[in-house]
């Protein structure tokens, strides 16, 4: 009986395993234009802001202007925003990007492997990864009130040496 309880507890712990403070899982993806491929875990000494999105998700559209502004401000300081598209049809993604043009990297995950590895629980989900490839903050969804917090967290990661 005790072993069964222990086993159940272990399973419970596994299912609740938070992403924050975990090493970012490796997941190789190509940009939507196919010109560049990158690994989500390999931040190359930069702060990574990984965002999982889809064209059908309302809050994702709301987050794009914010992420674009953040990219404009902090890209030169070493913050790289990577938005992982999870649409079934890439046309939907392209139409969305036409309406919400952005400067940061958009990668596509046709097989939807990365969201499983990153245990995405909401759309959109953003992961802040530090210079050592460790996930430091996870944000579920996107609300206007999150902007200041996200900005502060990115800045704090930048200030770390």
């Amino acid at each position, binding site marked *: 009986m005790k072993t069964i309880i222990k086993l159940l507890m272990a399973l419970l712990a596994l299912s609740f395993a938070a992403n924050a403070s975990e090493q970012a899982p490796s997941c190789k993806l190509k940009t939507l234009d196919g010109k560049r491929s990158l690994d989500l875990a390999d931040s190359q000494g930069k702060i990574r802001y990984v965002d999982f999105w889809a064209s059908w*998700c309302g809050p994702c559209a709301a987050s794009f202007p914010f992420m674009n502004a953040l990219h404009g401000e902090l890209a030169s300081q070493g913050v790289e925003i990577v938005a992982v598209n999870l649409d079934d049809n890439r046309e939907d993604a392209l139409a969305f990007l036409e309406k919400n043009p952005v400067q940061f990297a958009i990668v596509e995950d046709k097989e939807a492997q990365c*969201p499983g590895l990153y245990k995405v629980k909401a759309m959109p989900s953003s992961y802040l990864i530090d210079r050592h490839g460790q996930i430091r903050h996870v944000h579920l969804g996107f609300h206007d009130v999150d902007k200041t917090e996200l900005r502060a967290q990115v800045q704090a990661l930048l200030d770390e040496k």
Partner: protein
Amino acid sequence: MKNKPRWFAILALPAVAMLAGCADVQPWERGTLARPQMALEPDALDSALIKHTYSSKEAAAGGYGVGGGGCGCN
């Protein structure tokens, strides 16, 4: 009584087979569910108007989670 295991199998098999129909829809797989056609109320304004007229004409209201009389003034 001798046939109990067989009966159990006959009952359990369809149940197990039906379990295959249960799928875990992940957050990123909800694109189809997010389509406007999938909404319970496709047109919020239209359904609000219909409810308003209904509550006035039927001299009764409720069933939609809001209180009110049948005066058509709420």
